[in-house]
């Protein structure tokens, strides 16, 4: 169990700056996920913490001790690699025992610790096999076993599931979460998959271009994104963004679209947006916050409706995704199955205006309100 504190971390490869000053505190036992598009610096950050990359400036401290100059082996961390990095010429047992042998743990203890780890991961039957005789999922378990068998302070996972097929990935994801609940070790997990980030994390650290764009609990980031990037990155299907104009219509702040379509803002939130009156803004709305108006059902006060000509219908079984054009932008709407059957129908859609966000087009920041 350990705390991790990173301050002012910078790292560049030649002229390319991979990390441009990262500050980060991870509490004891926390499951922290670094997420972001490729090239955002998340893996570099993880490898810097592990000591596999030399950093240019800043400090990394584990439990208050600065480890900048320590070699990876002396930082007492365990790491699971994307390609598993199993030692191909050693058996599964020896793979898991490798770190213990290197640290001169007595044989009897190695035996019991390896078999405990193997039991925890359900790979007791594989201990005598060689890595090449294992399937991808089994290899992944061995790699995790190699990490948990050591009594390390920090667990680092570098995109551990990206080489597995989709079905296996879901299972392993749940297992990693359960493992963390059992062991309770401070864990850092790197992924580019926002679903993994949402489901696993106590805290998400969203990186972009070498800086932390936003960090916090998964649902906080999901519901209260600070920037357009965060809003767009989390959630599937992605949040819709439409460039529009904000102005007074009949005394109420209203978003004005083409074909005379209008969406009045939620009166409860309108005051905060008042300074953007007569300006262009970007509307952000998640597909699940748009519904089909159903004749007589009572409307929530914040709902606003527009007409939409559906031009694409994608049923997934549980839900149906429909698209229509608004201000030259394709908007995706998530509807119950069978809500729309054919493209070409015009329907009335209700926007939940209490949950939409407005974005300043200059700063790309979400307007708080």
């Amino acid at each position, binding site marked *: 169990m350990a705390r991790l504190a990173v301050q002012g971390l910078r790292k560049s490869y030649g002229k390319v700056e991979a990390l441009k000053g990262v500050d980060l505190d991870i509490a004891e036992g926390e499951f922290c996920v670094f997420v972001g598009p490729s090239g955002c610096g998340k893996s570099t950050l993880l490898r810097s913490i*592990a000591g596999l990359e030399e950093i240019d400036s800043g400090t990394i401290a584990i439990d208050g001790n600065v480890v900048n100059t320590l070699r990876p*082996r002396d930082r007492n961390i*365990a790491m699971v690699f994307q390609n598993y990095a199993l030692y*191909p*010429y050693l058996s599964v047992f020896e793979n898991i025992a490798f770190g213990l042998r290197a640290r001169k743990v007595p044989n009897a203890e190695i035996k019991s610790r390896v078999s405990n780890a193997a039991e925890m991961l359900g790979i007791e039957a594989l201990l005598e096999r060689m890595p090449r005789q294992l399937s991808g999922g089994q290899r992944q378990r061995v790699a995790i076993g190699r990490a948990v068998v050591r009594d390390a302070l920090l667990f680092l996972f570098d995109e551990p599931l990206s080489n597995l097929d989709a079905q296996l990935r879901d299972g392993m994801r749940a297992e990693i979460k359960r493992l963390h609940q059992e062991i309770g070790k401070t864990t850092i997990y790197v992924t580019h998959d926002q679903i993994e980030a949402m489901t696993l994390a106590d805290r998400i650290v969203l990186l972009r271009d070498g800086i932390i764009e936003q960090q916090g609990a998964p649902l906080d980031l999901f519901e209260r994104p600070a920037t357009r990037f965060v809003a767009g990155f989390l959630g599937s299907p992605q949040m819709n963004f439409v460039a529009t104009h904000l102005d007074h219509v009949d005394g109420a702040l209203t978003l004005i679209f083409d074909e005379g379509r209008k969406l009045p803002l939620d009166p409860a939130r309108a005051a905060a947006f008042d300074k953007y009156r007569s300006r262009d803004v970007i509307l952000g709305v998640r597909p699940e916050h748009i519904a089909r108006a159903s004749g007589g059902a009572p409307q929530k006060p914040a709902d606003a409706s527009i007409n939409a000509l559906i031009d694409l219908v994608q049923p997934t079984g549980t839900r149906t995704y429909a698209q229509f054009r608004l201000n030259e932008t394709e908007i995706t709407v998530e509807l119950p199955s069978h809500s729309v059957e054919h493209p070409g129908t015009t329907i009335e859609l209700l926007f939940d205006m209490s949950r939409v966000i407005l974005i300043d087009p200059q700063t790309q920041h979400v307007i708080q309100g």
Partner: protein
Amino acid sequence: MSAVAEAPTPPQPASPIAGFVDRNFRWLLVWPSILVLLLIGLFPVIYSLFVSFQKINRRVSDTSFQGFYNYERLVTDERFWDSVINTGIMTGIALPLELVLGLLLARLFLESFPGRQILIALIVTPSVIAPFVAGAMWRLMFENIFGPINEIIRWIVGGTFDLLWLINDNPLIVYSAILTTEVWQWTPFMFLILLAAWSNVDKSQLEAAEIDGASGWRVFRRIIFPAIRPVVFVALTIRGLDLVRLFDIVYALTRGGPGNMTETISIYAYIKGFERFDISMTAAFAFVVIVSLSILVMVVLRRVGVTQ
């Protein structure tokens, strides 16, 4: 009758021979060239086998069958066994030395640093030189009065130092001169092959081992060496065969002397064949060497599992 077509039968060849030709046409096309290659490749071996059972030398040319006469002379010839031992000593010392030095150099050049490419090119130069030239060069280096090696030692120890490196009663001195030259010339070859293999070892395995806290030696023994093992054995086989056939360097440095102190198998065979013109015995000599080397190589390859 249904409209379903019967399975089409292949056209029947006219005669059994035509059928055979039809089925094996591709092999028939390849056969002539295989035959030619076998003839070219095996003819000298078979011819020397023939000659080795005859009695041909400078004076007599008796082509009748002599049984194992030449083989008997060979195995009872002390100078032959001396040459086998000399060759064994040179191989036994030079081969591990080149391997270890090659590994150390490869380790040194694994990470990139400024000037790496140029340094690698410079290090490899000795292997580009013809071995005989290298030998001649080092004979000048070891020259007792004007040679740079004695000169450098004179700077260090001061006063006079006049060591005869190549004509010395002490085999240690003559052998170290020969082995220096041999190792100087061929370590770069090992280095280059091992560097290529070593650079291909999966980086993340090494990183995982570093995080696991393994010492450098453990990482080498458990991860790096198993990964480069096949390449190491191929390199050892190539260099080993070269060393067993060692000729140029030694001939240029000492001509096998003083006496026959440094005479290798190849040098003795050369003397027998081209200085004494004891043709039949040389043929027996060559045949014994070929057969024993072939067996050795097969055993080695099977042991290390390269052929599987």
